[in-house]
């Protein structure tokens, strides 16, 4: 069941990612990227990283993509540009580079996980038992990392003031 869902969303992510980089219209590319980000959010859920999945949808598929679309529209790039890959020579070059990349990535797929990022067995299940995975993120955030959390609001305040100062100067 989990494996089937993984394959479905993995294929969606790969397919929309390929469509994203092959579309000539930048708006179409950006919209395919939204599909990729949604599929990645589903994959994060499969990894028991529900909070990252929520962040992925809210911040990346929501806010960051709005910024991407606005930049495309501000620069008036909404029309097809010239192709990057020209002629059979370009296609050959692209094939060779893609093959080289796959060859380089192959050992990574077979390599074991380093010990530092391997959780002891049962950790995730134990955390999930308490208050779900979002709760497992929330408890240290509001307890141990209380001060960094409050400072994050100061950081956001700085960004808000900076954005207004930079954008309002010439208006």
């Amino acid at each position: 069941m989990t494996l089937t869902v993984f394959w479905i969303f993995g294929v969606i992510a790969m397919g929309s990612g390929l469509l994203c980089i092959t579309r000539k219209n930048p708006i179409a590319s950006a919209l395919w990227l939204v599909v990729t980000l949604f599929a990645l959010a589903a994959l994060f859920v499969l990894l028991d990283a529900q909070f990252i999945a929520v962040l992925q949808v809210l911040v990346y598929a929501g806010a960051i993509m709005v910024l991407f679309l606005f930049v495309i529209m501000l620069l008036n790039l909404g029309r097809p540009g010239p192709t990057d890959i020209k002629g059979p020579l370009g296609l050959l070059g692209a094939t060779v580079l893609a093959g080289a990349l796959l060859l380089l990535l192959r050992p990574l797929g077979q390599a074991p996980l380093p010990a530092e990022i391997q959780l002891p067995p049962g950790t995730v299940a134990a955390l999930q038992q308490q208050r779900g995975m979002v709760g497992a993120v929330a408890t240290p955030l509001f307890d141990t990392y209380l001060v960094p959390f409050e400072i994050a609001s100061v950081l956001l305040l700085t960004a808000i003031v900076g954005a207004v100062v930079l954008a309002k100067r010439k208006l």
Partner: protein
Amino acid sequence: MQPYIQFLMLLGMAVIAGTTMIVASHFLGPRRPTEVKERPYESGMPPLGSAHERFSVKFYLVAVLFILFDIETVFLIPWAVIFMGTGTLTTGFLLVEMLVFMLILFVGYVYVWKRGAFQWD
């Protein structure tokens, strides 16, 4: 996996309903295109120019402010999950914590407001 079955069913039904409606209307509906019908709909007006226009840079400020306040709401999600208290964290403590966070960002909101960044002049 178990809690997400309903969600996957909803997603599947949304995809099926959407595609069925488009495909069915494509095959079953009559299609007699005229020049007027093919035109993009612009509130019944004849369309003025192309949609591929340069947009005002003022939209950019709106987008940046949206991202910043969006990140603020992201912090509300884990907070809401443990709001009823967990371990050493009590509801009152969490409430004060989030109020301080919100208050600092409210200063930013008031600043944006007073500087007139919400005004479309």
